[in-house]
């Protein structure tokens, strides 16, 4: 489906993840963050940068991996994105919902 964010029509999944990473911009990210009740700070953006980097290099992400990244530890990751940090941070980053390997 389509949703207007930051003044443009963006394609998103039912759960609100971007369908096309190329449509992402920092404004779109901030708007998604606001929907999640998160106000973005430099700390948040550092994590988003890291997550997008991993995505571009096709490295699958886990909470543990983010915690070991040197960018932030697990506790800090939760503090920035309360509830489901990896899910929320992935949405804000404009990348697909993390696959929990079932």
């Amino acid at each position: 489906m389509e949703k207007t964010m930051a003044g443009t029509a963006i394609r998103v999944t039912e759960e609100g993840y971007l369908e096309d990473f190329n449509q992402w911009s920092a404004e779109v990210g901030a708007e998604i963050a606001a929907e999640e009740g998160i106000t973005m700070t430099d700390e948040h953006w550092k994590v988003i940068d890291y997550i997008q980097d991993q995505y571009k290099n096709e490295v699958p992400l886990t909470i543990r991996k983010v915690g070991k990244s040197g960018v932030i530890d697990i506790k800090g990751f939760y503090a920035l994105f309360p509830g489901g940090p990896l899910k929320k941070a992935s949405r804000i980053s404009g990348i697909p919902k993390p696959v929990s390997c079932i």
Partner: protein
Amino acid sequence: MKKDIVILGAGTAGTMMSNHLRRALADDWSITVIDQRTEHHYQPGYLFVPFGVYEPEEIVKPIEKFIPHGVDLVLGEIDRIYPDHDKVVMGDGKEYNYDILIIATGTNIAPEEIEGMMGPHWHKDVFDFYTLEGAVALRDKLRKWEGGKMVINIAEMPIKCPVAPLELAFLADAYFEHRGMRDKVELVFATPMSGAFTKPKATEKLDYLLKEKNIKIVPDFNIMSVDGENKTITDYGGEEISYDILVSVPTNKGSDLMERSGIGDEINYVPTDRGTLQTKVKENIFAIGDATNIPASKAGSVAHFEGEILLENILRYVKGEALKEEFDGHANCFIETGHGKALLIDFNYTHEPVTGTFPFPGVGPLSLLKESRMNHMGKMAFKWIYWNMLITGRHLPFVSAQMTEAGKVFDD
């Protein structure tokens, strides 16, 4: 000249591959399989041990019984793989050279990853059921237990057999009811997922069953620590849950061997191509079962489906042909729901579990995503199939390695 295939691990997948390969390859190939244990455990049976349905003896057999003639079984701990030298070195220093290596070392619980989980309370009030010792300790505790609060917790995903913790909750409900003490037991299911399961249709159904059985679900609970003295668990967000009995599925990790060899990811799973099962470590190293990092369920049924495809790819590799990218992530799992009933789910990388009939479209006899007695009989029959067909590498009748869409209801 003789050539060597070495298989690491003689569990479900390693045993199965040794049987497949011995039948398929001529005598100019020697096959060696290495494991540190002498016993093969039917792990799906662990689920039933706490409730006295299976005795430990029924689910443990000697490893060597299932390794075919013409395959060398080596017992001992594998220390390291040297991909650049095509060799494996054992803990005692012995070396094995290979032309082709198959990694099938599985995954195991790592309770030490959760702060405070290990301690005097381990296997006293805090249990796992992913090991035989844990399942037996829980059984002994339940026999004497007079009631209280039992919390079932998944530490983090991925775990092997991701439906097993739910099944444990369902079976506990039935067990306490049977013993006439259900009203004295509070059951809580605390999970890092946002519902009972990861896939939407199945979650809807399973959330409903939890409710029906009066099992309280605490979603998005990411455990940080266990306080064994005060009997509480705390998540990263600060939420606390108290317990009398904690049944935990701790973090699952692949073998430390990967870390020592420098080839695993951060939880020691081997980077593997999800279609061909060739690892990204080197072209002559393949991986199967729980040891890989592919986004499929870690389950015996998955190892079985992978086995048929891996066999073909190894035969192609031997002949110098291109590999087939055929594995579709097919998984097929029974979910025991208690009182002699079970659900069945069948899915792959791209198709979530839905309702329908299996294996014959429109006929069954098994029903997908619906409780039935027939499904329960299927689950019970799985033990026989496992010992007699699955690990000996026989094709299961009517069930193909790739998932079939026939007989399933995809949109409703």
